């Protein structure tokens, strides 16, 4: 099950649609690290709303993904972690430390707009096309 990656202006949005195998997650990580360069994206949103379970492997892979994207000069935000998934993660000791999170896609976009504008410092007063 490959995760569709949408390009939306300066961002890449990966919306996980269903349960993913470990191999799917690694594939997503590597695809985003490559595409962020190809499309010169400033930010990446990974929407995990539909992910059934965030176990230690998924957490670790998303953390690695965020760090890789950072090393490539872009920002990552994980959105859509559901309350019960968050509880399971906390009980497993998985806190995604150092990784930005937001409530949902809308908040994730707002975060990236703020974050990447400040980074690149352009058009802060003019509307973005």
């Amino acid at each position, binding site marked *: 099950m490959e995760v569709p990656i949408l390009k939306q202006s300066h961002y890449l949005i990966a919306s996980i649609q269903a*349960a993913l*195998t*470990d191999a799917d997650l690694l594939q997503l990580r590597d695809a985003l690290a490559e595409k962020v360069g190809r499309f010169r994206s400033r930010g990446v949103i990974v929407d995990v709303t539909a992910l059934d*379970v965030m176990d*230690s*492997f998924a957490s670790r892979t998303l953390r690695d993904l965020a760090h890789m994207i950072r090393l490539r000069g872009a920002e990552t935000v994980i959105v859509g972690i559901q309350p019960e998934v968050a509880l399971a993660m906390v009980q*497993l000791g998985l806190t995604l430390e150092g990784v930005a999170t937001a409530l949902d896609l809308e908040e994730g976009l707002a975060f990236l707009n703020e974050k990447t504008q400040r980074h690149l410092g352009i058009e802060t007063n003019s509307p973005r096309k």
Partner: protein
Amino acid sequence: MITAMNTETTVPINSDADIVVARQKSRELAVHLGFSPTDSTLIATAISELARNIVLYAKHGEIIVGAVQNASRYGIVVVARDKGPGIPNIEQAMQGGYSTSRSLGLGLPGVKRLMDQFDIVSSLGAGTTVTVRKWRDAERSYVLPTVS
């Protein structure tokens, strides 16, 4: 303790795709048994960790999910077993932070926190069996359809 199972499912674990099947089957059963969505997610997460340990360390094994009942409570029981290398030092493995793989070593202690009961039997060269249970809140009035 008297345990009775009628809805028992065995999931063979041989690859990472089977990890997904195991956690889906355990969630389905949990929901069927009247566990809340939150508890069902906790259970599915625990089973995901146990199934991955089988793939990582023993290559092959199975996960058996079933209903369990004693005098006062209903619950779910999950057995994860393999004929893999076994765990040399269970105490160390349960402490957390110990890992023989690329991992964080949070799995087993985390599973214990996610579930209500946790038992592990492992002997070197013979394999590992982890048995976990979670009980439904006693006060809820849901009754199992056909537990004998």
